[in-house]
Structures are given as C-alpha cells and as structure tokens.
C-alpha cells in the first residue's frame, strides 16, 4: 500500500464518517458521466460557464436550490460548506444539521458534507448530472475533499494561501501547505480515472484593494504547487478590481504568465483556465444598483474572456441570499452573456508590461529562496513579506503593503512594504496616484473601499 493510501485510510477513518469504500469509489469515478467534469466542459464548450454561490444545511434545501439554478440555466452548481465543517468541527455540524432538519430553520451557513456522507450526496450530484464546484475555505480540507470526490464533485476550490490568509487569524501556514499537498495528490490520482479533476485557486483573497501583482503571484504559485503533484486541469482566478482596464490588463497578464510558468516547470500538458469573480467587495444597499453592478461586471467578464464567471446577488449587502435571488442573478447573467456580442480585444501595453515585470520580480524572489521545496520557498516568501496581502486577518501576513486607487480606480501600490518589486515598477505605480490637496490616505482608502456603494 502506498504511503498516500495509508494516509488516506487514516484520514477517512473518523467517527463521523461511514466506511470509505475506496474500490467502489474508484469504480464510480471511472464510470461517472462526463457531464460531471468541468474539465470536460471546458474542453467541449466555448461559452463562459456561469456559476453562482450557495449552500444550505439540509439535502432537501440544496436539492431545491439546484432545481432553481437549473431552471435559470446554470452551467456549474456550487456546493458551499458550512463554517463548522470548515473548522473540522463535525460534532457541532451534526447537532446543527439535526436541528435544521427538525425545525426547518437553517442552523448552519452551508452544507455539512461530512455528516451527510458521500453515499447520500452522490445521489443528488448524479441526479443533476451537472458539474459541481466545492466552495469551502478550509485550511485542512483532506477529509472534505475525499468526501467531495467520492460524491461526484469534480472541481475543488481553494489552496494553502488563498483559503488561509483571507480566512483565518492564526491557523499555521506550514500545516496548510502540507494538508493541501495531500489534496493535490488525491486530485491527481482521481484525474487518472476519467476526465481530470479541476482545481481552482481563490483569486479574490480579501476582496479589498488587492493589487493584481500579488493576486497573480499567488495564483501562479498555487497553480505550480498543484501541477507539481500531478493535477492536469487548473483554474486561476481574480475578482473585479473596479477599473475595467485593470481587469483587462490583469486577465491578459495572468493568462500569459500562467501558461509561461506552467511550461517553465514542464507542465505542458496541463489545461489552464481563467475564472472571473464578480465584484467581491462591499455592495450597495440598493438592490437595483446591485443588479446594475452584476450586469456591468458580466460585461467585463466577457471582455476579459473568462472561461467561468462566479456570480453575486442583489442581496449581497443584506445577507445570505434567498434561492430566488440567487437564481435570478444566474438567469440575468446568462441573458447578458447571450446578448453581448462583438467584444473587442482590448489591451494596454504599458500597463501590461509593468504588471508583468512586477509579477516576474516577485516570482524571481520567491523562486530564489534557499529552501529545498517550492512550498517552503513560498512559505518563506510570505514570512518575509515578499508576498503580502492587504486586509488579511492572518497573523503571519506582513500587512505592510498599502494600496489605494488612482483616478481611473486602478488599484495602485502606495507603500510596497517588503515586496521585492523594482524601483522602476514601483515608480510606475506611484506615478499614477493622485491625492487631492490635503487629502489623507486613510480617507482615500475608506472612499476606495466603498466605490461600488
């Protein structure tokens, strides 16, 4: 028995888990419908895939949510996991699930996949015969991902950085790397059974004034860490910045560099896709404006040529959306994408050059670290502040980089902290910034956070 398999047996032996029948699961995946694989969909369709967010505690409510989504023309279904499960607290999740089932009140903010188990969940997934994407935010997602794959969920979101630095205050980063290494390995293994499992990184990070250079670096390293373990289909992602041209530039650069670095590391056979998140920052407290924001961001997604778009709802500022609001957004995004035609190929050479330089400068610093493995290099880069995410709640994050918006609402680096970018790149960034006479940086930041409100 391989080392990995021994680990898997331990991980899946858990008091909240029914016996894991690895053979049966392998047989299931081998004969699973191609329709369940988003990697297959990417190969066979040119259309931008539309995926909402959403999850409820009970099987019935998720089932009804999926029905609503299907009616709205959804391409990819989400399965969002509750926060107890994310923290591996299956006992609480079990209790709350029972309460939710008895009282018809939601006591969990997502689907407790461990407690439902793969035998039950698979029924739903195969019933809808549509790709499902696992949305969680779990630093230790080993059991969760086993359960997801066994259920027929063939896209796994997350990564050691993107699901940690924006989502956690003090979960140890080195552990996160090792737990995700396991996840990558299992995904790679399953990818040999049928169509590839698709892994997706979470580019929005803290969703607040994130500089594209840092977002791209993190996308690239999570991609490399995944491909290194044998994953063959990977989606890099980012979220709407607030400036149309910055979105376009970010997309052009990330597409180019993702391919470049994948090839550089010998992963010529890996498929790489681009996912665009609709505005992830603070939404307006006005549902009609939120509708407009959702449509405008759909137009931009089409312009940047994303392979998948992840949608928001008109309820975003208020709270967790109803299934109706969620389906409404899907239908409206599908309509917009269907109607939008004649999209121009846009670019801005100077901006693309500068962004490319910054990403390459940081990547060089990361890769030149003395550690023996890639994950350790990345770990060190974060510790050194070479990778530094504004508005991360995590204690390991340097929190020295400060970003503000220029007059076009492009996000610019005002303080570079320990970012290993060249003076030239930094000067370019600074040259775009305009502060009004007497305007304080903090007031500008507050304004810049609220641009969509």
């Amino acid at each position, binding site marked *: 028995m391989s080392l990995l398999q021994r680990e898997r047996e331990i991980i899946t032996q858990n008091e909240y888990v029914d016996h894991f029948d690895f053979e049966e699961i392998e047989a299931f995946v081998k004969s699973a419908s191609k329709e369940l694989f988003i990697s297959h969909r990417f190969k066979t369709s040119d259309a931008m895939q539309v995926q909402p967010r959403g999850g409820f505690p009970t099987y019935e409510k998720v089932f009804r949510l999926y029905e609503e989504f299907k009616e709205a023309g959804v391409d990819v279904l989400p399965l969002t996991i509750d*926060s107890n499960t994310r*923290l591996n607290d299956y006992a609480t999740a079990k209790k709350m699930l029972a309460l939710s089932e008895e009282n018809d009140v*939601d006591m969990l*903010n997502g689907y407790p996949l461990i407690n439902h188990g793969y035998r039950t969940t698979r029924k739903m997934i195969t019933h809808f015969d549509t790709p499902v994407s696992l949305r969680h935010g779990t630093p230790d997602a080993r059991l969760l991902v086993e359960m997801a794959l066994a259920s027929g969920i063939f896209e796994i979101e997350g990564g050691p950085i993107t699901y940690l630095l*924006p*989502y*956690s*205050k*003090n979960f140890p980063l080195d552990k996160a790397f090792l737990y995700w290494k396991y996840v990558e390995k299992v995904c790679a293994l399953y990818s040999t059974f049928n169509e590839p499992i698709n892994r997706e990184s979470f580019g929005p990070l*803290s969703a*607040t004034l994130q500089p594209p250079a840092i977002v791209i670096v993190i996308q690239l390293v999570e991609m490399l860490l995944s491909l290194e373990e044998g994953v063959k289909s990977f989606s890099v992602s980012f979220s709407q910045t607030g400036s149309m041209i910055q979105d376009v530039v970010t997309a052009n650069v990330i597409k180019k560099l993702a391919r470049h670095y994948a090839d550089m590391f010998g992963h010529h056979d890996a498929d790489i896709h681009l996912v665009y998140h609709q505005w992830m920052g*603070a939404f307006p*407290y006005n549902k009609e404006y939120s509708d407009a924001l959702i449509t405008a961001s759909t137009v931009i997604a089409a312009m940047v040529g994303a392979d998948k778009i992840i949608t928001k709802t008109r*309820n975003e*500022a*208020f*709270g*967790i*959306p*109803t299934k109706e609001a969620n389906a409404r957004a899907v239908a409206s995004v599908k309509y917009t994408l269907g109607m939008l035609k004649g999209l121009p190929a846009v670019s801005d050479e100077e901006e693309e050059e500068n962004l490319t330089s910054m990403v390459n400068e940081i990547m060089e610093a990361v890769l030149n670290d003395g550690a023996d493995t890639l994950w350790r290099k990345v770990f060190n880069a974060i510790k050194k502040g070479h990778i530094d995410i504004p*508005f*991360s*709640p995590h204690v390991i994050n340097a929190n020295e980089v400060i970003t503000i918006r220029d007059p076009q609402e492009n996000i610019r680096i005002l303080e570079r902290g320990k970012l290993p970018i060249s003076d030239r790149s930094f000067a370019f960034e600074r040259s775009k910034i305009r502060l009004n006479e007497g305007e304080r940086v*903090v007031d500008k930041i*507050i304004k810049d*956070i609220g641009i969509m409100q």
Partner: protein
Amino acid sequence: MKVVTGVVGNDIHVVANRLIEISLKERGFTVFNLGVNTYLEEFLDAIVETDADVLLISSLNGEAEGWCRDLQILKKQYTFRKDVVFMIGGNLGVGEMDPDALVPKFKNYGFDLVFHQVDLNVGLDTLENYLKAHA
C-alpha cells in the same frame, strides 16, 4: 477614554475592524483592538485588564446572535465598572432581517447601543453623544 474592540466569533471580516481602529483613534480614544475571530470571554477579559470604558463589538458574517445571547450570564461572572458601555454593530442577522426586530433583541442581550447595517460614523457619533449624556 479607552475602547476595547474586535470582531466576535469565527468571523474574519477584517476590513471594518481596521477602519474602526483608525476612526476611534482619530476621535481621541485609546484603542485596544483584539482583531477578528475573538470570543466573548476574550472581550470581557480585556475590559478588566484595560479598565475600558467602552466595548465595541463588530459582527459581519451573521454569527452575532449565536455568540451574544449568553452575554448577560457571562457579565455576572466578571467584575468591572457598572458604566462600561456595551456596543455592537455590523450585520447582525443571517439573510435579510428587519432592523426593528434585531435592535430590541440585542438590547435584551445586554447591549446599550445596537447598530444593524448602520454606517460606522453614525454609530460613533451616537456613542460620543451617549457618553456625553451619561458623563
């Protein structure tokens, strides 16, 4: 005046928290920011340790109710000044809620000032007026 602040429960929405710290300082308060992901006991410990005048809790992800319903019981286990102002704000419900129902609920839990989906500065203005009125 000393303020203890932070985001309650497993909530990691840090943006408002950062702005709150800055705004409080600007208004002349001494700030002890416990950051995100802070449990109720930690807040109460900090009031005692710092002899704070105000506890300002944020909650964004909908967990507020779950964490705050036992505040009264917990308060009894601590000894601190009677006039500490308990304040909470952010997004206090799950899904879309009626603010008129939420505010009395949290007042019952033992908060003096409750702000559901209310702008920070409006909340801080109210706090300052409240402090003046009760001075």
